[in-house]
């Protein structure tokens, strides 16, 4: 079948809109290679168009290697270029440089992986995460666990303020982690435990993007803890377009009010609680949240603690009293 001219123009527009979404999603870390994209039917509703037009747009993107259409499964963000090689490693120079530097520190290529493993996993490190709402406690904790291999004890700052003693587990922490808003409380707590406080800054891309969109259309957030609702509203208070901000609380508000064409962001905690909502297909999940300086700070902590433990072991000639994996 052939499209009328109108449909061809619409296909072009949808193609470029989708291409833009995928590329900014990847850029912002909201999408990853292999993530599932909205179905043609869902997009057809959103663009008020024929599903066949959307399918044609997806096919055009498939030709460019942006998406992958898997029969009877769905549409996914495609791995670029050679499917055999994960993207980060396509830059061979980077790998070579790393190994070459390693040799200057006495780590030959053959021992590199083992050295890195020891640098990050000799100790099972535990972080006490302090935040003022469940959404942030959850996203900070998940990131520490998944990306840095830490064990985590979650502490609501309300417990600290009410003078309750920290749970025993939290007192065994190797570090206290929080965001800028609670720096003072975290430093205080860390000083009492005699461990470092890591005060993290969040990646501002997401908020900058939301801020940009708020100028011309409503943007939805779905959160779990009403305290985060309040905090989030505070971030945008007085900003241009802040009256466009819509924050819904999962379990309290009706999520079906989110229009099909509005950008909607979901916190990690909310997403974890909504495993199979059709809404999820087109909602943008919160991805990594630490900014690059904070990411490095946590990694510094992990690596220096591990290397210090290794040195200690070498000095004592064995393993003594350390918590190992």
């Amino acid at each position, binding site marked *: 079948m052939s499209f009328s001219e109108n449909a061809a123009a619409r296909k072009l527009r949808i193609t470029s809109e989708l291409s833009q979404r995928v590329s900014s999603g990847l850029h912002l870390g909201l999408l990853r290679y292999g993530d599932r994209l909205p179905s043609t039917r869902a997009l057809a509703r959103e663009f008020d168009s024929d599903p066949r037009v959307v399918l044609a747009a997806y096919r055009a993107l498939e030709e460019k290697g942006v998406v992958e259409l898997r029969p009877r499964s769905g549409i996914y963000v495609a791995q670029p270029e*050679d*499917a*055999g*090689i*994960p993207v*980060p*490693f396509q830059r*061979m120079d980077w*790998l*070579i440089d*790393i190994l*070459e530097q*390693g*040799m200057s*520190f006495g*780590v*030959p*290529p*053959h021992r*590199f*992986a*083992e*050295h*890195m*493993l020891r*640098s*990050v*996993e000799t100790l099972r490190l535990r972080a006490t995460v302090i935040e003022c709402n469940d959404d942030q406690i959850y996203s900070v904790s998940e990131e520490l666990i*998944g*990306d*840095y*291999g830490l064990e985590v004890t979650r502490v609501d700052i309300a417990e600290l303020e009410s003078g309750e003693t920290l749970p025993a587990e939290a007192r065994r922490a190797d570090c206290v982690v929080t965001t*800028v808003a609670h*720096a*003072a409380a975290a*430093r205080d707590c860390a000083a009492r435990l005699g461990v*470092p406080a*890591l*005060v993290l*800054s*969040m990646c*501002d891309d997401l*908020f*900058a993007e939301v*801020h940009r969109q708020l100028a011309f259309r409503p943007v939805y957030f779905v959160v779990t803890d009403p305290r985060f609702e309040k905090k989030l509203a*505070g*971030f945008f208070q*007085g*900003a241009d377009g802040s009256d466009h901000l819509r924050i819904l609380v999962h379990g309290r508000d009706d999520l079906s009010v989110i229009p099909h064409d509005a950008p909607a962001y979901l916190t990690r905690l909310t997403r974890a609680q909504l495993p199979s909502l059709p809404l999820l297909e087109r909602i943008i999940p919160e991805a990594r949240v630490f900014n*690059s*300086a904070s*990411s*490095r*700070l946590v*990694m*510094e902590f*992990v*690596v*220096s603690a591990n*290397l210090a433990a290794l040195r200690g072991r070498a000095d004592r000639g064995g393993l003594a009293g350390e918590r190992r994996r």
Partner: protein
Amino acid sequence: MAREPIKLADALRRRFFSGLHLGLLRPGSRLPSVRDLATEMSIDRRVVLRAYRELEREGLVELRERSGIYFGSRTPGLPGLSPPAEWATDVVTRGLAMGIPAPEFPTRFNSFLSTVRLRALCIECNRDQLTSLCTEMTSDYGFEAEGADVDELLLEGPPREELRRADLLVTTQFHAGEVRELAARVDRPWIAVSLRTDIYKEIARLLGSSEVFFVVTDHRYAAKLHRIFEPVKGGSGFHSVVMGRDDVTAIPDGAPTYITRAARPKLGDQRLLERVTPEERVFSETSAREIISLMIGSNMHALSQQDRP
């Protein structure tokens, strides 16, 4: 009046957090001066200063004398990292920025080094250098390595078995021409490693003021060394000691003495063993880079073949 600083501090705190999240402020950004804020909000400067001090106690801002007010405080954070820790941190942090969680990084990275086990055939004209080349290919780069004498490989007849089973031929620049020809015969990549020159330079320097002894196992390497040091000032003070032929106990106490990897395990003289300078890594940085490129390239190729349906 007493409550005012707290209220102002609250307002500023909200304003800064919002700026932070919108990307308008970063830790280390300069904040409006006391005077500017006082003018903007039409309040007394002392009230503004008190609010800033309040935020400073919370660690949210930093008042630097004669400089200004900055967002965030310099992280008292962690004690300085040692250079190797700094390197490891950089590596894993960059891995994470590319989407690889730290706990997975070593395994993921390793697949680019050890998906295929490569076999190197080291080719030289003497046992000492063959041992050095093979040891380094094995212990530093994880190759399976075997050694062969260049003259034997060049003999007439079909290519020898060890040539055909090698993934890479390794030699030094002395035999680049011969190995290039051998590599062409069996269609294998080859590399003429350049050796680190520090040890030769150091010996040449020492020869200016003293005799130098070098313990080896193969007389052919001894001859090669003599050719290297002959033209050097004091070159007649260079002595090679071939194990099994020469008497190692003739080496005077206190004379600078070097030993090859091949000779070291054979040296029975405990007293001498304690003071000889052992051979370190011998490949230059340029050669290391070439070998690493070849390893990664071969592994990547193998990985992409594996994943192909």
